[in-house]
């Protein structure tokens, strides 16, 4: 690995034309914003945030359904970031403050303890996240199954990253020249599922770590690929990502879940981009257990989250941004999540 000053001077010498680079993962968006990387880059390197913020792409209907279950005396558990996200009329946080039993957990397996400690209550996990998170829930469901825990179920709103990238490459409104691919999603799935990016779309992509020096090195790798005109899926984040990923985790994931079409908030339905329970584990499917049909809810008129998530618009182009929509009073999901693009732009400037 090169030191940072060397990388920056190499980036400057390679940045000869305007290049749109999408950082797919919200954690990258935050790392880029908080470290000031944009100010170190030449002006013609345009970093664009992508759809990799799980909370941002979770449809409002999922939150409405979780609220409905909470009002029906279920214990709702989820990760902290979900709490503030507005559904169509309320949020989990507002319902928690009005007395519903809604809990935040650190580890997915904590839900097993909560289910065991509350045998007379139904415990429902609101499952959001990408391929980094979904295997941890699959493992938790397996533990629940092994220990014959019946009062635990999951609303599966998990999403898969590669199908969303395909949609972004197919749209014609903005041309993405390269991708900074998510580090920890790739620690699970490896590089192979991204193959279409370089083969079909001839677009360079680098699996990148989360330290500022990782991100700069990732950009350097991308510019080298562009210069040599040899697009491929490269791994910068070698200390954590093996080419094959974690096949054991992938196998475990697909023993509990299978691919299904899925609704992305602000984007729409993407084919085979979500996960539903396999027949064997369908007893843990909260949607089946409580006969829930997720309602399709329109986004607030004028909210540009959908365009922000696909890189077509920058947050400051939205009429609400910074005026009516702030982290304290968010209108769209990109302002709610701590790793949402609008929240990052609001906190750290453009």
């Amino acid at each position: 690995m090169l030191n940072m000053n060397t990388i920056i001077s190499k980036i400057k010498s390679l940045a000869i034309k305007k290049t749109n680079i999408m950082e797919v993962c919200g954690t990258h968006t935050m790392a880029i914003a908080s470290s000031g990387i944009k100010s170190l880059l030449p002006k013609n390197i345009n970093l664009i945030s992508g759809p990799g913020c799980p909370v941002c792409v979770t449809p409002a209907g999922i939150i409405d359904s979780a609220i409905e279950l909470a009002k029906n005396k279920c214990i709702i558990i989820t990760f902290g970031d979900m709490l503030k996200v507005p559904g169509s009329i309320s949020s989990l946080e507002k319902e928690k403050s009005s007395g519903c039993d809604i809990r935040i957990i650190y580890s997915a397996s904590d839900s097993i303890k909560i289910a065991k400690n509350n045998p007379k209550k139904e415990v429902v996990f609101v499952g959001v996240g990408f391929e980094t998170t979904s295997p941890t829930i699959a493992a938790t469901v397996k533990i629940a199954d092994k220990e014959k825990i019946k009062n635990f179920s999951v609303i599966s709103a998990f999403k898969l990253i590669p199908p969303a990238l395909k949609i972004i490459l197919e749209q014609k409104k903005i041309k993405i020249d390269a991708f900074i691919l998510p580090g920890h999603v790739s620690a699970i799935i490896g590089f192979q599922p991204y193959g279409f990016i370089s083969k079909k779309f001839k677009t360079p992509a680098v699996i990148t770590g989360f330290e500022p020096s990782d991100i700069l090195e990732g950009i350097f790798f991308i510019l080298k690929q562009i210069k040599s005109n040899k697009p491929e899926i490269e791994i910068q984040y070698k200390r954590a990502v093996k080419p094959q990923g974690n096949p054991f985790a992938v196998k475990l994931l697909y023993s509990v879940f299978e691919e299904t079409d899925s609704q992305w908030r602000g984007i729409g339905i993407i084919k085979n981009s979500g996960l539903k329970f396999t027949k064997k584990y369908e007893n843990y499917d909260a949607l089946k257990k409580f006969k829930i049909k997720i309602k399709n809810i329109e986004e607030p008129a004028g909210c540009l989250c959908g365009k922000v998530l696909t890189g077509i618009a920058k947050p400051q182009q939205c009429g609400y941004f910074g005026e009516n929509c702030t982290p304290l009073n968010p209108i769209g999901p990109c302002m709610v999540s701590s790793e949402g693009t609008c929240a990052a732009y609001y906190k750290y400037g453009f």
Partner: protein
Amino acid sequence: MYNLFMCLAIPGKIILIKDNIADVDFGGVGRKVGLDLLPDAKIGDYIIVHAGFAIQILDTDDAKERLDIFKKIL
């Protein structure tokens, strides 16, 4: 703060393993971590952990090389 970032995973060192659960040292803070997704992990391995489960073993040679560079910068 780490808790807030959905796809951020943090590195730690395995101190003990019992019944598929590891005691992991995150720079002085201990936590129990499930090895359900990483059955080959051993005591002494540095692992990255997401939502209470180990998801990958860290390549320590690459990690150490990076730490050395950081030390040089500092």
